[in-house]
């Protein structure tokens, strides 16, 4: 333990503790709480029953009422802890009439006791409402939504990587008239948010007949200039001599792109791929607009179907939100090395 602490507190040059170390540890500790706390809270909440979700104050863990089978009663009866003049005891509730509950002692099922409801609290155990997770798959076609999401994410990412890297290659490794113009165009539109072109884009998609098609979701997103910009910046660092060497080596321009430039752009491609997967997986507003048929729903759109005019089915919504987070968390766990190293190394500027 002491060794672990010594290791943890190891500092540069082995000098004494100073305020910067304290700031470091406080910030990292707080960060741990602030970053993962909310996510954890979401996961725990997603396992609560609808009634428990609207409770205040909310409990940390999901609970379910404890019930007991009492002789003479057909259904299991909920247990309550009762505290009144007669002391504290555990009783099962038969029925409630206004502010008065009729309760029995499970050991003595014959005697009905009348208890003011203010004097009792339900007995509960930690219990998980797994049905929040299973119902959507049984009642709604979540498996199909997942398939659609995977399709959109994969295709969009592949097309993004291919077309963006091709364009970036042309824009970084060839001199031609109008190149500057294309670059300015791409950069100028780099940060135009979807909401700005929502309406005209919808009419275009509808004009080409891609409403309710997964391609209507995929195509507008793969053209985002971000990828071209990022890859071009990275390709600029590949020395021109390599391409000339390849040309001397009888390589065609396509081979130069595919065999030389693309492998060397791998770090930036990895970053773009990760971002593309995350972005496309999380896309919400645009798919919501394009897709209104159940068989083409993506997960995020399917999720939204839990919001009715008057009520939101929070228990399903939270559970499925957690489900949609799973791939992102997997990406996070398996690829975090690439993300951090890739962003740091890809000159993402």
């Amino acid at each position, binding site marked *: 333990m002491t060794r672990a602490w010594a290791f943890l507190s190891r500092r540069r040059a082995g000098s004494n503790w100073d305020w910067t170390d304290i700031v470091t540890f406080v910030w990292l500790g707080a960060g741990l709480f602030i970053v993962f706390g909310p996510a954890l809270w979401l996961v725990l909440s997603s396992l609560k029953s609808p009634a428990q979700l609207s409770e205040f104050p909310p409990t940390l863990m999901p609970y379910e009422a404890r019930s007991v089978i009492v002789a003479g009663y057909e259904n299991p009866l909920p247990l309550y802890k009762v505290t009144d003049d007669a002391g504290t005891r555990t009783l099962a509730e038969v029925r409630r009439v206004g502010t008065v509950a009729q309760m029995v002692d499970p050991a003595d099922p014959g005697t009905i006791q009348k208890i003011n409801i203010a004097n009792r609290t339900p007995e509960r155990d930690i219990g998980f409402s797994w049905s929040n997770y299973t119902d959507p798959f049984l009642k709604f076609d979540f498996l199909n939504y997942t398939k659609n999401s995977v399709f959109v994410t994969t295709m969009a990412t592949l097309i993004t990587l291919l077309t963006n890297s091709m364009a970036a290659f042309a824009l970084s490794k060839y001199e031609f008239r109008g190149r500057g113009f294309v670059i300015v165009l791409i950069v100028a539109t780099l940060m135009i948010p979807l909401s700005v072109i929502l309406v005209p884009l919808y009419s275009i998609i509808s004009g080409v007949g891609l409403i309710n098609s997964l391609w209507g979701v995929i195509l507008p997103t793969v053209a985002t200039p971000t990828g071209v910009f990022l890859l071009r910046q990275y390709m600029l660092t590949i020395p021109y*001599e390599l391409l000339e*060497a*390849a*040309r*001397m*080596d009888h*390589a065609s321009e396509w*081979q130069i792109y595919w065999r*030389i430039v693309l492998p060397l752009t791998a770090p930036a491609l990895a970053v773009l791929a990760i971002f593309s997967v995350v972005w496309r997986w999380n896309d919400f507003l645009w798919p919501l607009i394009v897709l209104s048929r159940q068989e083409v729903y993506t997960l995020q759109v399917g999720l939204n179907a839990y919001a009715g005019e008057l009520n939101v089915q929070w228990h399903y919504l939270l559970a499925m939100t957690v489900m949609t987070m799973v791939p992102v968390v997997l990406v996070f766990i398996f690829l975090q090395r690439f993300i951090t190293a890739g962003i740091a190394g890809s000159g993402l500027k």
Partner: protein
Amino acid sequence: MGRIALHNIRKAYGAVEVLKGIDLSINEGELVVFVGPSGCGKSTLLRMISGLDRPTGGTIEIDGQDVTRRSAADRGLAMVFQSYALYPHMTVWQNMAFGLQNTRMPKAEIAERIADAARLLEIEPLLDRRPGQLSGGQRQRVAIGRAIVRRPTAFLLDEPLSNLDAELRVSMRAELTALHSRLGATMIHVTHDQVEAMTMADRIVVLRAGRVEQVDTPLNLYNVPNNLFVAGFIGAPGMNLWPATPETKGSFLLEGGTKLELPHLDLAGPVTFGLRPQHLRLDENGPLTAKVTLVEALGAESVVHAELEGGVRLLAVLPGQPDLALRSQIRFAFDPAALHVFDAQGQRVKTG
């Protein structure tokens, strides 16, 4: 195989003319070195030959065929780049095989050629490594190996030694020369280092500002430089160059005031005298009086920096370790036959 002829090659980037009409013919099996100060156009010229850039005017012939419009890959040449341009994501073997695979050569032959080249260059243990795991010298060999396996009609080497440290450069220089004699292939080597040019070349092409100043064997360049530029550029340390004006017949006044009696010369108008530092010797009766400013004793010889009258600088290489005090006055003599004379335009003046 491997004759290259350039006719009136010109290259301009916009209004800037980089090559101003170059004629040159390179013989089969020759090792030709392009040398000149940076910006003289030597690398540009090499790239014209390689086909990576197109000239704005003139023609390039290889083995009698006009290849001016042909692409780089179709000229049958191989190039070694200054940065080696090894593909970082491929192993040494893959680097060497890449070009051959692109020509759809049978696998067995690729393997054989690479094995041969690897043996020749002693890089067999490195074949599975990637360029990042190699030292500078090893990368250099791999880059050459990549060129060798192609069996090109000619090798083009673009300052291939400039990224090596001094010691390695000397040994690689020798190796390249040995390689050349073993392969017997035409090689064009570009460098800004005249020592490299002198030691390696069959013939040297001295370039300045987009023009060829002189093409000749190293020793001819040294002994009979065609003009002031070549005279000053070739040889280390550099030639002493003293502007002078004739006073009377056979008598010249150097800038700064030193008088020289050279009865065999009958020249009118201002001239520049050139004298290699090695051709000066100590002589108490010599015609040149100079004040010693610095002595670099190298053991076998000493380089003496001195000033003639009027602060004109003089450089002499003296054998052994002469005992010269700083700021002492000494006198030099020289063999008048060793004196190079250049006219006001900088061209060599024949002196018999």
